[in-house]
């Protein structure tokens, strides 16, 4: 998902009886559905895992602006341009809500940026694919934001208060993102045959990377079990992927598109679709930094950060000067 394959430092799940009284009290509060707040005691593994998960999520929101930003200046109408701008601006906001949530766990913003810019931190694999046509912008809203919603809705109930509250704000804004994307595609499939073909091509390219967003099957993963026990993850990757496919296939049909999966069939018995597996080798490659746009994305982030340094310093200098003047005026008045 936006945070894929988050490690927990746990090698196996421990029972309540194996925990010391403090940790047991913590786990019982989590089990009872209580929220954990910043200054409260928490296991170090819980804190570290949350920092990883929330910061990965934040980095994804920030880097996620880049593929869409590519089309702001080329949107087909002024209205589409304004809508896309608003959408991308929301993503910047999502990144900021999440960085703030991560900072309540004792990491600084500069540390988090440094981890992103140095390539140490991960962000979602999906943003390392190029946006080649305007239909890609529609496909991203529909599929990528759609997959994000699948994952973020349950995270609103996560055990860590600041993360949960950030997710609630984010979820309120996401459905606009998905609808604006689908709306782009609804227009295009009613256009010329070339425009309709462009939409099909976008679906062909974005379908499998969208399914990869949920991460590989984690049914046997200790990390996933631990995250679920801590209630910072609510559903397995396969569960969410299934829900996404079931929701999305009828939407593709409505657009008159073909989902590029020869194994896709309705399974009456389970009341959902059977479908093929994405190319997981490709996924691990993208995660390892070798996707089509990894280098370009990181370079764009570093450039934005470095090019803005003089401006950030200027604002700091201005703030210091004004503070000095205020102090001097106060002394003069006394």
């Amino acid at each position, binding site marked *: 998902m936006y945070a894929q394959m988050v490690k927990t430092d746990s090698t196996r799940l421990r029972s309540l009886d194996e925990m010391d009284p403090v940790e047991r009290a913590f786990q019982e509060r989590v089990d009872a559905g209580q929220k954990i*707040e910043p*200054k*409260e*005691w928490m296991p170090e593994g819980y804190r570290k895992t949350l920092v990883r998960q929330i910061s990965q999520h934040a980095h994804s929101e920030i880097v996620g602006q880049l593929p869409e930003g590519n089309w702001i200046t080329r949107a087909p109408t002024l209205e589409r341009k304004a809508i896309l701008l*608003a959408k991308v*601006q*929301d993503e910047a*906001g999502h990144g*900021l*809500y999440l960085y*703030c949530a991560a*900072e309540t766990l004792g990491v*600084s*913003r*500069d540390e988090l940026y440094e981890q992103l810019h140095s390539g140490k931190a991960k962000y979602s694999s999906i943003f390392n694919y190029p946006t080649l046509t305007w239909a890609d912008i529609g496909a991203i809203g529909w599929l990528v934001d759609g997959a994000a919603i699948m994952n973020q809705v349950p995270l609103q109930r996560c055990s860590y208060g600041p993360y949960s*509250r*950030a997710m609630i*704000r984010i979820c309120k*804004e996401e459905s606009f993102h998905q609808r604006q994307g689908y709306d782009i595609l609804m227009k295009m499939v009613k256009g010329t045959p070339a425009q309709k073909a462009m939409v099909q091509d976008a679906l062909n390219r974005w379908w499998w990377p969208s399914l990869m967003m949920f991460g590989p099957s984690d049914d046997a993963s200790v990390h996933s079990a631990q995250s679920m026990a801590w209630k910072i993850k609510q559903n397995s990757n396969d569960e969410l992927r299934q829900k996404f496919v079931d929701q999305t296939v009828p939407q593709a049909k409505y657009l008159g598109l073909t989902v590029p999966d020869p194994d896709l069939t309705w399974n009456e018995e389970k009341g959902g679709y059977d479908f093929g597996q994405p190319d997981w080798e490709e996924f691990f490659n993208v995660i390892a930094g070798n996707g089509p746009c990894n280098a370009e994305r990181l370079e764009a982030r570093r450039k934005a950060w470095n090019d803005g*340094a003089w401006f*950030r*310093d200027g*604002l*700091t200098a*201005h*703030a210091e000067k*004004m*503070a000095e003047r205020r102090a001097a005026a106060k002394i003069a008045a006394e």
Partner: protein
Amino acid sequence: MSSEWPLWEVFIRGQHGLNHRHVGSLHAPDAEMAINNARDVYTRRNEGVSIWVVKSADITASAPSDKGPLFDPSNSKVYRHPTFFDIPDEVGHM
């Protein structure tokens, strides 16, 4: 050389004559920029009519361990709630 901007806590008053409510935090070099940034980060959809910003470092918070001493004493004072008193129906609305 750049140093990190301080963290500000943001409080927003919604449309309906409510109290300002904490909505999150952000970094800004000074209070004025904090308000400008808060406008963009927290009120993109008319969520508010007024913004307060306070430097996070200036907030004094009770410690989680103080929860007992601070709040337990009021648990035993049930007479502070109107439902503690039985008023006969004949008395009418009270």
